């Protein structure tokens, strides 16, 4: 079943959904490329599921347009959109066997019985459950049920697959193995995936691009590394991974960087906008990208430095987690990979931390 390049392109254009005055989705525009794995990531209530439901046809947009392969589908009922869909609770038909469940979309499309049986077996092999056709859904584990739901959603070879937190009900280990399986399926099938989750790690692991949703809008869209390394706003910096936020005052510009004063030190930050000197800004820096200056940097320590006091030290196993306080009272978190060779710091001692300009983002 090689269907490379068979994915649909999806264009969301100023999509809106209002419920009695409350805007669940407030102007979402995303162009999803053919064969892309796009994740809608956001906390609950951010509008990600509502957006997905509008693409699937279960919700009608209040305004805006959805085009699949350039053709608007807003007026098309769900059962005529030819989109595969996987639900969080699997939504397997309890009165049908596994094979009948997977054959369901084929039956609706008038596929003959023998051909149906062949395609069902093929789909079962694709999700690594060969020979499970005669079982009842309730006889399967959660992970197996979700793989059956996946098989059912792709057996009719849709060009677009929508997934609504499909791994949300599974335990961590199973989730990780299914994440890899989804990636493999995505590569094998070549169809477009739109995936909804509130789990940032899941989004980072699987997606080609992530659209971070916040209060009904797209806060930022881009590849995982870009969202992590260069968050455009405070929400994205805080929601994806962990961030330290440092209040600072702009002092000037220098070689494409902004120079700002932060807790008595001058630090440099990457920045896409052009803030005026004297303006108050917030700088973001990832805890794992901060280092103690005397903590064994390979090269000369990077340019941005701050004097701090350790207020809390926690050994987490793979790393040590320190809470630090700057001169102006701002709290910082620093994560240091743990090593028996590294000296562990204790609360109360003073230190100097450093991090690179590339890891300093003005948000």
């Amino acid at each position: 079943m090689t269907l490379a390049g068979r994915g649909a392109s999806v264009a969301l254009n100023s999509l809106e959904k209002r419920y009695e005055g409350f805007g669940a989705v407030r102007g979402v525009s995303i162009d999803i490329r053919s064969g892309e794995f796009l994740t809608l990531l956001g906390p609950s209530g951010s509008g990600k599921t509502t957006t997905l439901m509008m693409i699937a046809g279960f919700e009608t947009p209040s305004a805006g347009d959805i085009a699949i392969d350039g053709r608007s589908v807003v007026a098309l009922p769900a059962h005529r959109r030819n989109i595969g869909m996987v639900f969080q609770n699997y939504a397997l038909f309890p009165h049908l066997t596994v094979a009948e469940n997977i054959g369901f979309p084929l039956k609706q499309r008038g596929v003959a019985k023998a051909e149906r049986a062949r395609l069902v077996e093929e789909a079962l092999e694709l999700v690594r459950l060969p020979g499970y056709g005669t079982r009842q859904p309730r006889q399967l584990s959660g992970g197996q049920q979700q793989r059956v739901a996946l098989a059912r959603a792709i057996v009719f070879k849709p060009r677009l697959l929508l997934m609504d937190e499909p791994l949300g009900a599974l335990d961590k280990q199973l989730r990780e193995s299914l994440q890899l399986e989804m990636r493999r399926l995505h590569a094998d099938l070549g169809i477009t995936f739109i995936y909804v989750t509130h789990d940032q790690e899941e989004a980072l692991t699987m997606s080609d691009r992530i659209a971070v949703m916040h209060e009904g809008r797209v806060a930022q869209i881009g590849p995982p590394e870009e969202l992590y390394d260069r968050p455009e706003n405070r929400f994205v910096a805080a929601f994806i991974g962990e961030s330290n936020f440092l209040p600072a005052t702009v002092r000037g510009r220098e070689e494409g960087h902004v120079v700002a004063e932060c807790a008595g030190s001058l630090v440099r930050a990457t920045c896409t906008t052009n803030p005026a000197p004297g303006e108050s800004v917030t700088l973001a820096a990832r805890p794992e990208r901060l280092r103690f200056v005397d903590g064994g940097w390979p090269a000369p320590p990077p340019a941005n430095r701050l004097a701090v006091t350790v207020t809390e030290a926690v050994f987490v196993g793979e790393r040590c987690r320190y809470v630090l306080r700057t001169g102006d009272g701002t709290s910082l978190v620093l994560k240091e990979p743990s090593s028996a060779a590294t000296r562990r710091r204790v609360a109360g001692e003073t230190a100097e931390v450093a991090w690179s300009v590339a890891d300093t983002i003005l948000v």
Partner: protein
Amino acid sequence: MSEAIAPALLAPGRTAGMNWRRLVPLLLVAPLVLFMLALYALPVLAMLSRSLLEPAPTLAHYAELAGDEVFHRIFTNTLWTTLVVTAGTLVLGYPVAMGLARARTLLPLLLIIVLLPFWTSVLVRSYAWMVLLGRHGLVNEALLAMGMLDRPLRILNTPLAVHIAMVHILLPYMILPIANALRQIDPSLARAAAGLGAGPWAVFRQVTLPLSMPGVMAGILLVFVLSLGFYITPALVGGPRDMTLSMLIAQRVEQLDWAYAATLSAVLLATALVIIAIFQRAFGVGTAFRMSAR
């Protein structure tokens, strides 16, 4: 006294304690079982025994029934009425149950509308139908006033009147189990089916209807068994030719023909039991009454 001390006093040892625990459910149902045995099972047995023991041990009463033309006609009529009423409640009740299952804000109102007749005496409702369906009743007067009829229709005292009134009275017994079964269905199943290419009719045919079957079976069974022994309504709104088994029993009791009445009762009871047994075999009454599994 704590749970742990009680078994220790009664029977020391761990296994004894376990047995005591197992007895608790039995003790809980015991009062009801005793009540049913003393006041229901024994009188029924005593009554049924009359069909076999009066005046001396004999099967003559049953033999007599087998050859009785009048009994045959009444028995067939009873079964026919039961079938029509069951079918009527199913056809009228299923859509109402669907509405009830889907209702959100309107649910309390709809429930009251469905249940209101439920709380009114069968006698009152049967009289109400007499008033409505009579020669100068509301239905006839309305049709005459609209010019759709030249002279009043004869509805009261016909099988039609019996069917209309019984369907009305028994509808809640059909609606409630079906609505309950429909409410148990995960709403994402219908969505999933639509997403997989099933149109509204296909969703109903292939998902909603099969999943509501336990409720449908419970409803059919309830209405079937109840209408089999219905007495007041057919007696009041039916005609002389619409006699049912229960009316015949009442008639014989009035004539103090206890043996014959007991024999008829035995037949009625057996018919109901056979139907329940058929349902049990075919669908499992257990599933029909498994109300809330989710």
